[in-house]
């Protein structure tokens, strides 16, 4: 190359590109689905190993996304008696139960002023697609109190567009305090055993004080109830992530 001077310019190497290793940022955040963690009991670990193999096999063929209680999902199942032989339901996940292959999640929505809750099995072959429309967490693990809350908190548009969520960002926690319908409720949610933080209690102070009579402050110190899952989770996370990468 000849520069404007007419002499050959000294070769300038191009500037080094800045590589942002996004994989490293992603690996810092791990999510192990709660149904992989075996319950405490006297069952042979071989049984959990066989179940995990089946679960991983199913996940290789069908994508089960990461979601928490409080995220809005859309599930399409194969239905023999529907028009297109497929049934789509949108709702907020209020509960995740069961361990192993029988893991379930309950979706709630209010359709034409009628509250509808459907319990789906995560590993059932009839489920054709699970999409996460909104990924977020709430203050509680169990949102069953939405049955006694005002219907506006359980209504979600059936044709709502998925809200984008970046991979490496942390899952947002929605600190919404829900307003309830007047009492009687299906369960006495003000009692400490449910430990609910997501309700705006507009009850008189006398009721709240009386509800504290049923508190069991010794429960958190009970050593026999402790179940430390950190080491088990580590092992299972390594196993599952290795298998899924193949």
């Amino acid at each position, binding site marked *: 190359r000849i520069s404007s001077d007419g002499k050959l310019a000294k070769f300038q190497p191009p500037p080094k590109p800045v590589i942002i290793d996004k994989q490293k940022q992603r690996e810092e955040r791990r999510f192990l689905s709660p149904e992989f963690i075996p319950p405490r*009991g*006297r*069952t*042979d670990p*071989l*049984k959990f190993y*066989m*179940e995990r193999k*089946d679960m991983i*096999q*199913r996940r290789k*063929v*069908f994508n089960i996304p990461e979601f928490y209680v409080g995220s809005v999902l859309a599930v399409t199942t*194969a*239905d*023999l008696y529907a028009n297109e*032989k*497929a049934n789509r339901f949108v709702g907020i996940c209020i509960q995740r139960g069961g361990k*192993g*292959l*029988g893991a379930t999640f309950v979706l709630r929505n209010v359709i034409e002023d009628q509250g509808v809750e459907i319990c789906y*099995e995560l*590993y*059932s*072959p*009839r*489920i*054709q697609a699970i999409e996460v429309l909104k990924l977020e967490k709430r203050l509680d693990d169990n949102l069953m109190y939405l049955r006694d809350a005002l219907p506006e908190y359980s209504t979600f548009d059936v044709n709502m567009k998925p809200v984008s969520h970046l991979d490496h960002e942390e899952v947002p926690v929605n600190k919404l305090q829900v307003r309830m319908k007047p009492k009687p409720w299906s369960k006495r949610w003000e009692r400490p055993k449910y430990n609910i933080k997501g309700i705006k209690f507009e009850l008189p102070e006398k009721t709240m004080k009386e509800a504290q009579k049923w508190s069991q402050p010794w429960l958190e110190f009970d050593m026999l109830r402790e179940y430390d899952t950190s080491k088990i989770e580590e092992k299972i996370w390594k196993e599952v992530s290795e298998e899924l990468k193949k």
Partner: protein
Amino acid sequence: MMPIWTKSGKKHAVTLLKVQDCHVLRYISKEESGGKTSKLLVGGKNASPFFKSESTMEIFKEAGVPRKQKVSTFNVTDDAIIKPGTPLYAAHFRPGQFVDVTAKTIGKGFQGVMKRWGFKGQPASHGQTKTHRRPGAISTNKAAKVYRGKKMPGKMGNIYRTTLGLKVWRINTKHDIIYVNGSVPGHTNCLVKVKDSKLSTYKDCNKNPPFPTFFADGDEKLPEDLYDEEMFQFTDPSITYA
């Protein structure tokens, strides 16, 4: 227990049974046993050989096998006799077969008449004096005695019971596991006896079973998992009703 789905989308519950170090211990001929057929003694799970009398250890020494925790007899026809000392594997059974499972039920201890026999008891209120879970009358006036076998409180459970006609859905040859439909008597990790079904409806269910048993050093190389035809395998895509 685990769920299992069929190709039409129906869910069934399944029990996992592990075949742990099973060996044939002894052959007892028809004349010796005094029954209609000859018998084969089969031993289960390995156990420690210490602190046991010589007479009990004789059977295991003859067969050349470590001491087994459970020994059971199977009635066999003459053409199905196996040499003592051969190991038995889960591949002896095939998916689609029907099977009877025998085990000792969970022991409940000394139980009252309501739990043991399902009696209705007496009402909780309206004047009942100290009588809410009692059997009531035990016989009539004319009989003037109590019949033998009268249902009364006593030790419940811890007896051998059989569940008949259970379908085998899947067999894992690597870990020797049999997936059997429905529930099975006994607590988790208890020892269980599995036989071919005696029910007449399942007489012709076996199409070419491994006869007399599955030999690991033979020519047959089985895949790791054997599935029943109707069972949904997780390698297939999701079910659609087209």
